[in-house]
């Protein structure tokens, strides 16, 4: 039973529909909570309080208020914009992030689509985001947006290589692209997780993957596509209201995708850290989300600590440091897998 919904509803129309909408039920509250967390975490790191009034208790309703405001705002389309592309772009960006949820094994009993090439699918479908951002930047007919879009395209395409190579190392160890298989291969206590269990090879892999994934989600220190102090807001300079909210939501959704993939590949996914204790379908979801949230927290933490790279330094890091390292790493892992039999 890999998907309890299709198990009960069948894999017909209703089963598929409920299955595909279910991640949305998760993303919305997740995004709101993460937005609030980011506000509060950044505030406390910066010696201030952050929102305190909205909703009485530590400003818990601030993201709700923000989203409500965004929804009410006027949806401005620049006169000179390429309307079709302009309207389509935010949707495509969100679709790219959202579609990845289909292959994330939330628990032993739930994976949207239990396909053999799960991780491959995630990498492929995430690439849609590039297209969306390019469309947004180009169609806005704004020079800042265009620069932001060009930067994004260059950045995402470059960083897909080290991140894919890192993923490949795990796939070589497991011998499967299916993420459920990857999780199953790490069952048992937490020292069986790849990041500890296959030390140091997969630990290095994890570092490579995590750095590359930061770049793929456009988070600091790799947030140069939207670098607010340079490019005003990069590719979404001209967007407002609902459409801006889509970019925002897609960013948070994407943050969790890479965090979830990292926790599946390296931290045992839905496995409990304590062997058979506290494991099961519901606990599985709990563990995956907790692990993902820890990684999301680290992303937030880095964002509020580090300055931003420059475009050429970013490319340098990808092509001259991460990619060679990932290649050497893959070779080492391959050798190790072969020698161990």
């Amino acid at each position, binding site marked *: 039973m890999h998907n309890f919904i299709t198990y009960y509803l069948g894999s017909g129309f209703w089963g598929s529909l409920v299955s595909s909408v279910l991640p949305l039920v998760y993303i919305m509250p997740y995004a709101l909570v993460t937005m609030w967390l980011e506000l509060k975490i*950044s505030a406390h*790191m*910066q*010696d*201030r309080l952050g929102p305190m009034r909205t909703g009485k208790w530590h400003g818990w309703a601030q993201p709700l208020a923000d989203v409500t405001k965004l929804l009410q705002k006027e949806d401005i389309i620049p006169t000179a914009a390429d309307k079709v592309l302009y309207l389509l772009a935010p949707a495509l960006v969100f679709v790219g992030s959202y579609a990845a949820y289909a292959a994330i094994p939330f628990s032993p009993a739930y994976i949207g689509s239990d396909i053999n090439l799960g991780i491959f699918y995630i990498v492929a479908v995430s690439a849609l985001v590039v297209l969306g951002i390019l469309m947004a930047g180009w169609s806005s007919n704004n*020079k*800042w947006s265009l*620069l932001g879009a060009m*930067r994004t395209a260059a950045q995402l395409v470059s960083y897909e290589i080290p991140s894919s190579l890192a993923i490949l190392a795990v796939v070589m160890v497991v011998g499967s692209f299916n993420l459920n298989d990857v999780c199953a291969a790490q069952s048992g206590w937490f020292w069986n997780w790849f990041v500890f269990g296959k030390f140091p090879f997969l630990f290095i892999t994890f570092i490579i993957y995590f750095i590359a994934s930061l770049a793929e989600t456009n988070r*600091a*220190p790799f*947030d*140069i596509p939207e*670098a*607010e*102090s*340079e*490019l*005003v807001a990069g590719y979404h300079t001209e967007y407002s209201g609902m459409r801006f909210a889509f970019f925002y939501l897609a960013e948070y959704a994407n943050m969790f995708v890479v965090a979830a993939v990292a926790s599946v590949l390296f931290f045992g996914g839905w496995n409990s850290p304590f062997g058979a204790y506290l494991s099961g379908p519901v606990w599985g979801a709990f563990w995956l989300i907790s692990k993902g949230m820890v990684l999301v927290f680290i992303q937030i933490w880095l964002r*509020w*600590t*580090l*300055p*931003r*790279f*420059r*475009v*050429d*330094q970013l490319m340098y890091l990808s092509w001259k440091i991460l990619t060679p390292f990932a290649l050497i790493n893959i070779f080492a892992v391959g050798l190790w897998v072969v020698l161990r039999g």
Partner: protein
Amino acid sequence: MAELRTEEMVLNMGPQHPSTHGVLRVELVVDGEVVVDAVPHIGYLHRCFEKHAESLNYQQIVPYCDRMDYLASMNNDHAYVLGVERLLNIQVPERVEYIRVIMAELQRIASHLVAIGTYGLDIGAFTPFLYCFRDREMILDLFETTCGARLLYNYMWPGGLSHDLPPGFIEKTKAFIKHFRPTIKELNDLLSFNEIFVKRTADVGVLPADIAVNYAASGPMLRGSGVKWDLRKDEPYSVYHKFDWDVIVGAGEVGTLGDCWDRYMVRVREMEQSLRIIEQALDTLPEGDVQAAIPKRIRPPVGEVYVRSETPRGELGYYIISDGGQKPFRVKGRAPSFVNLSLLPEISRGYLIADMIAIIGSIDIVLGDSDR
């Protein structure tokens, strides 16, 4: 590939842009992301200071000086009142000079904190910005207890001060110094020596010393290029000659001499020196009346004076011509931001747009100052 032609694009940076530190507009000619040429356009904040000054009497000009470089109002006033006093040829009580120095140095720290914090922001580090503003807030509180204002003080008057120091000021200032010393170290750990920050600012916007002098750059801009030149030391005014402190110059520690990092670091280290000056001044503060020498009506003799002083941004000069009347015949402000900003095209060609931000930030302009 030879036929592949790229076209240059004109990019308007500002006047509404997050990193132009106000209403500066820079017309960038870019080839991809490489800046081919940069033409700064100023004047969006021109408030006719010089024209106003001709129709006001000498005391009334002080609040206008406050508004020139609104991040360093105390230093602006200091230069102006020095000029008027030199024109009048009066001596102010020693206590006044001491308090002026204390205020000017506190203001220098406050101004540098803004410069450093916003520079971090330009480079993409958000957190140091808030640390800097937290500490600046304490200085503003000190000013508030002294003269009631937090930004535009009208505190230094020709011949004296508007108020004496309030009770408890010395203790509070010492408490601030005690708090602030360790935070400079914290700032260095978090930002100054951060690997990414150094990579972003070292070897960027290199300004050789001879060009800096030819452009009459001043302040951290000039010292960052290794020229040991500080008016407080080399042309001492007020009571600066009584204190023991060092002039900080850039040394090209992490890159080329005269790059953005050097200019930035001069500011950080100057704050420590300012703390030293304040400490000494507080310990040796003489007693006396701070309003004794304030003239009721100012009628300087016919003549003129060019007075200059070291503000956080560099050499602020006032050229005041008196025709013997109650109002000056002409007041010219030689603004450090104005002169330093004219260097921008010289040091920004050939760098990337992202470097452009780093360069503008490292000049530390205040548009109120450059536009007047």
